[in-house]
């Protein structure tokens, strides 16, 4: 099963206008969802919509700005869950814009879609590797830990 959602959409408006509607919190609220977005890399924000019980979703998307390249590219994480800040689905939304003669071509890419069970495994793996690297570091720097076996 393909775990990528892609949409391509042409707007007969200049790229500056489209970019403005993709990155201005108030304007985004008019067509997407209410939010506290700021066009700053690392900024954490939320989109709020109605909950979906059948999807175990409380109506809040927890996001973080990952990349901004003005008039070209915008990416943010897009995580959600059943409530109280618990995350059971992680994904990433990326917008790319291309100026055309009579308007703007917009490419939307929504991917990742790691679910809770997979997240547990993924984080477990990450933790495992971190531990290994720490072990290696310890082995390489025995003096730092006061282990003077020499």
């Amino acid at each position, binding site marked *: 099963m393909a775990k990528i*959602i892609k*949409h391509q959409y042409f707007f*007969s*408006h200049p790229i500056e206008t489209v970019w403005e509607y993709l990155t201005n919190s108030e304007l985004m609220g008019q067509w*997407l969802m209410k939010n506290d977005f700021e066009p700053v890399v690392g900024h954490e924000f939320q989109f709020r919509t109605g909950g979906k019980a059948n999807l175990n979703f409380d109506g809040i998307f927890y996001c973080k700005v990952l990349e901004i390249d003005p008039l070209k590219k915008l990416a943010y994480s897009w995580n959600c869950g059943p409530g109280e800040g618990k995350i059971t689905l992680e994904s990433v939304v990326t917008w790319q814009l291309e100026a055309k003669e009579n308007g703007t071509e917009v490419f939307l890419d929504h991917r990742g*879609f790691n*679910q809770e069970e997979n997240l547990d*495994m993924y984080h*477990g793996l990450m933790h495992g590797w971190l531990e290994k690297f720490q072990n290696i570091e310890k082995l390489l720097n025995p003096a730092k830990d006061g282990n003077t076996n020499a």
Partner: protein
Amino acid sequence: MLLSEDSLTINSLADNFDMSRPAVSKHVKILETAGFISIKDLGRERYCTLKKDGFDELKAWLNYFDQFWASKLKNLETLLNKKLPN
């Protein structure tokens, strides 16, 4: 794919692969941890079954977001056309 039709024991699964039984067992364990299959002990055998829940839920999410974006992009177009006539 072998598990899509019915449940199989780890031994019978192993017969389908050019891998040792312990190696197959290890892969099965990983798939179980990831929530893709479930393992049941029946007598002396361990039976593996594909867990469809995980797949179905993800599919529901993908369908939801696909329609979500289609309608939001339409919103944006309507909004742009209304506010900023060419």
